[in-house]
């Protein structure tokens, strides 16, 4: 392995990399090597973004589309956490439940969340319910798996002490397993949020009448490449913000538990 670069070198190289990337992106359409309709320059995309802030496209402005998408995401994510975490803990505590649920769960996991789209549309419609189900399908497995792993990794001495003191099943789960597996659960939530957000975008591309994904499909139909790219940027930024918030939470919890590196 080579020596670490100094801070100044890292910044310089990073700047060169970004400059080349943005420069090529800017130059290709500007000097006419690639038509603007095929690849709009970053400036065009930025301008388009400003316009979309106030002017509606596909029925709503960009912030409104983001709002619709986010509400769906939040609902599906919350449902996945509220059902997935208890299920994972129950599987971690009762071996019979684990043995019954695990094979079914493992079988279903090979079906991509996005493959649920047709059934989601059939069962819950294309408004809010259908996309929410897809987010749920994406975010559910990491919630279950991490709660399960957390519950399995609890110090056996804690469990034995609680058992000796006559703790019932319910209190064992809420007062021993749940608090002890919080770090693992929060790590799972971060994975779940990433997968859920990406599933939502997919669902909106296929079935929805609002949201960023829908806006992008409409833009694709109109060959409005700059609007498609605005959608991509918006999706990236919102995804990044969600991840950052959850990472903050994860770090805070790890610090409180004395697990910080």
């Amino acid at each position, binding site marked *: *392995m*080579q*020596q*670490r*670069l100094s801070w100044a*070198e*890292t910044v*310089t*190289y*990073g*700047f*060169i*990399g*970004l400059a080349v*990337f943005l420069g090529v992106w800017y130059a290709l359409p500007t000097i006419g090597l690639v038509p603007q309709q*095929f690849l709009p320059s970053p400036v065009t995309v930025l301008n388009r973004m400003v316009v979309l802030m106030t002017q509606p496209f596909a029925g709503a402005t960009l912030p409104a589309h983001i709002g619709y998408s986010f509400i769906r995401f939040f609902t599906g994510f919350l449902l996945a956490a509220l059902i997935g975490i208890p299920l994972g803990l129950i599987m971690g505590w009762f071996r*019979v439940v684990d*043995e*019954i*649920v695990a*094979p*079914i769960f493992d*079988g*279903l996991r*090979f*079906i*991509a*969340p*996005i*493959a*649920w*789209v*047709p*059934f989601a*549309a*059939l069962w819950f419609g294309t408004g809010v319910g259908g996309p929410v189900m897809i987010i749920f399908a994406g975010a559910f497995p990491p919630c279950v798996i991490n709660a399960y792993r957390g519950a399995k990794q609890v110090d056996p001495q804690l469990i034995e002490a609680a058992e000796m003191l006559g703790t019932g099943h319910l209190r064992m789960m809420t007062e021993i397993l749940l608090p002890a597996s919080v770090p693992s659960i929060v790590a799972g939530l971060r994975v779940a949020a990433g997968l859920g*957000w*990406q*599933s939502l*975008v*997919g669902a909106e*591309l*296929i079935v929805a009448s609002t949201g960023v*994904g829908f806006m*992008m*499909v409409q833009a*694709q139909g109109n*060959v409005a*490449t700059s609007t*498609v*790219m605005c*959608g*991509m*940027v918006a*999706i*990236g*930024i919102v*995804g*990044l913000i969600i*991840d950052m918030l959850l990472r903050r939470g994860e770090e805070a919890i790890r610090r409180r538990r004395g697990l910080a590196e």
Partner: protein
Amino acid sequence: MRNRKTIIGLGAILGVVVLWFALSRWFGIIPASRFPTPADFWDALKQIELRGYAGSRLHDHAWHSLRLIVISFIVAVGTGVPLGLLMGWNRKAEALINPVFTLIRPIPPLAWIPLAILWLGLGDAAKVMVIWFAAFVPSVINAHAGVRNIDKSVIEAARMLGTPPFRLVTEVILPGALPMIFTGLRLSLQASWTTLVAAELVGALVGIGFVLNVAQQDIYPAMILVGMLTAGVLGWFTTFILGLVEKSVLSWSVRGRA
């Protein structure tokens, strides 16, 4: 104890099948317009395999999707792993590429689908582009991390013994990073399937996702189930093959044997 686990597991799957028969067929609690009965499912399976549905027969759809996955996966891994290794080894390359990579990475692969269709149309090329994107990122990240996790003293020992750079890469760096690389490959494969199904659902002319798309428009629940299960079986099959490859390549590592 393994026995008990297998028996309960098989019992659970059998239970689901019985429940399916019971709810849809015998008691009619689930309406056939929402979820197919086992008989509907069987009929749909026969129809698509014998007479064809959405333009082709089932094995043609499946083969088309599988071929796309394999091609795109190999292209993505073939470009992603070397880039990851380079970024792990060469600090300057890392500093140069990392910011651009960080800029593009938050955009989920599925969000590239409309752009891919605009650029390359509804054919295979657009799918390869999107899947490449989905599988590329985990390959790069894990190869990068794999190089960084190699014990420094091993590299120094190799250097001290005068190992030429080429042999250092092929005999120290690559094997050292392999366990992590395979972790990345498994993630890449999973992402590839999700992306392919989504891309075919958005726009395609053949493939498993296209079957799902047509079945959805026809409101044909039995065919939706056929498509979903086929996608699941194909996903399982490719994961299984990758597992075999990993085991034979990593037979020397503890992880590979586990």
